[in-house]
């Protein structure tokens, strides 16, 4: 019986039409632009910053923004712009590796649970539930407080809480795929479960995973900022946006700009990544690929 249940709009090369609709998404372009700026800032900071971020100039402390110091200086006379740039690098690295851990462990777990079902599925999902039961940020705080502050521990702490997110998402997206006929066809072709999971299931869930990864990335930046604010993330003299916010508290009435710049940086980064995630969803999510 014909698969269409509603009368068709012309079927000609539907996917190209959808893809083009996706590419027109404003979220995609704006989010993409902001994320690109963030990434470039971080890259550039590897080779050059206006001033070394460790350069202290007590005489010039708390300076207003000028051409010499576009964002001004902080209470130690350090150039705020340079610190923001290096802070970007830190945030990105932490978020990246944390999401990498989350996806690297979570996706295979989710694929396994969806492929095997039965008690394997139950065990994986109960571990997931267990992990979800802990408030992520507070647990990250606890882990870093116990294991000791520092970027590496922050990465691990945030990464651990990304695992159940990816596991659950992958499992959910994969479950219905295992029933699809092309998977049956692969079985008839003598493919084993592992090969099917890698060659058929994963490419078809990749879109959903990529979208989630951008969102987790944004959350990772936020989490890193939170941890650094509490002094549990990257340690001084490594600058980080959260630490800058904390330091700015004392001077909030005197020089509110010290809080505004890192705050804006965090906000823009998170916003940009969320928009990018939304935009990618318009392009990639197969569920939106039904007729409009």
């Amino acid at each position, binding site marked *: *019986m*014909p*698969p269409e249940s509603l009368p068709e709009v012309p*079927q000609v*090369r*539907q*996917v190209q039409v959808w893809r083009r609709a996706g590419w027109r998404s404003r979220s995609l372009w704006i989010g993409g632009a902001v994320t690109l700026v963030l990434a470039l800032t971080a890259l550039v900071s590897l080779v050059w910053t206006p001033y070394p971020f460790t350069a202290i100039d007590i005489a010039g402390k708390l300076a207003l923004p000028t051409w010499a110091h576009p964002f001004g200086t902080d209470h130690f006379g350090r150039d705020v712009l340079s610190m923001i740039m290096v802070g970007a690098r830190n945030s990105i690295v932490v978020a990246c590796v944390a999401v990498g851990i989350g996806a690297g462990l979570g996706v295979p777990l989710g694929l396994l649970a969806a492929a095997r079902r039965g008690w394997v599925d139950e065990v994986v999902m109960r571990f997931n539930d267990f992990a979800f039961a802990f408030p992520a940020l507070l647990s990250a705080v606890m882990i870093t407080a116990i294991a000791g502050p520092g970027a590496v521990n922050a990465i691990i702490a945030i990464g651990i809480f990304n695992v159940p997110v990816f596991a659950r998402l992958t499992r959910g997206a994969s479950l219905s795929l295992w029933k*699809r*006929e*092309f998977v*049956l*066809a*692969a*079985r*008839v*072709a*003598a*493919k084993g479960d592992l090969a099917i999971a890698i*060659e*058929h299931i994963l*490419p*078809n869930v990749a879109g959903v995973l990529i979208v989630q990864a951008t969102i987790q990335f944004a959350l990772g930046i936020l989490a890193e900022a939170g941890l650094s604010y509490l002094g549990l993330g990257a340690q001084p003299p490594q600058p980080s946006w959260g630490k800058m916010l904390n330091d700015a508290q004392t001077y909030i009435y005197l020089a509110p700009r010290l809080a505004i710049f890192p705050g804006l940086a965090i906000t823009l980064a998170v916003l940009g990544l969320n928009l990018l995630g939304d935009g990618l969803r318009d392009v990639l999510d197969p569920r939106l690929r039904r007729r409009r």
Partner: protein
Amino acid sequence: MTDALLEVRDLVRDYALPRRHLFAPPPRLRALDGVSFHIAAGRSFGIVGESGCGKSTLARTILALERPTAGRVHVRGRDLFALSAHELRAQRRHVQMIFQDPYGSLDPRQRVGRIVAEPLSMTAEGRDRATRRAHVAEALQAVGLAAEAANKYPHEFSGGQRQRIAIARALITRPELIVADEPVSALDVSVQAQVLNLMSDLQARLGLTYLFISHDLSVVRCVTDEVAVMYRGRIVEQGPTSRVFTTPLHPYTQALVAAIPKPDPRRRQDRSTASAPPAPIAEADGGCPFAPRCPRAEARCRIEAPQLRTIESGHSAACHFA
């Protein structure tokens, strides 16, 4: 029956339904209830039935995608479920399948060449890329598509063309038996005709054997030598296609044949069709499964399940009154 390519003996398949109470055993749904038949090489055998009759379960069991609760399946003389995992994998190249949904049976993320080559890539000679490409080109041309189609994605093709791709995939390992599960149900009439003709031509050229499963009796009537009618997991009638359709013996077959809309406007009258089916019963009742809907049912039918017995040569039916 050692010369039969496919032999199915007393196949039973139960599914467990959700429990009604926490401590009660789960009720079982009997999808296949003692199905037996055999297909000789080079023949085209049809299985006809409506939704819920078990024909899809039958197809999956024959392809060893599911294990039966009881019964045996012999392919090329070997018991499918007695094979080791390794032997079963090697055996798969001889039995391939064409699926119903041309939109769902091809992985949207893979190119056509890779999709068609998949069964071949799991065999010894399929390891070499050049060999695979050559075979893929050959298979695509055999189904009437250009060899360049291998570089495109499924969404670039129409339903009929996708089904041709599915046929090419089924052919690539030169199987002996092809199970076609509603291969043309999702296609338009004129495309249907093209695909059915293609399947006939390929059968003649390559010496294939088909197990053709469909709910559409008109289609089955055109393309099969022998047909079995299934109802609620049992074969209720079996015989040469022309005979089963011109002189159906079982009341269910008669109802099916009468219900087919005929493109003959002189036929505008009320049909006396079987009454609406009751809700599916999980536990197997004793007696004939068709009794609740049968216009000829008597007390005997509700108690004693009729066995499939030969009425005329080669034509059998499971009814007390056939």
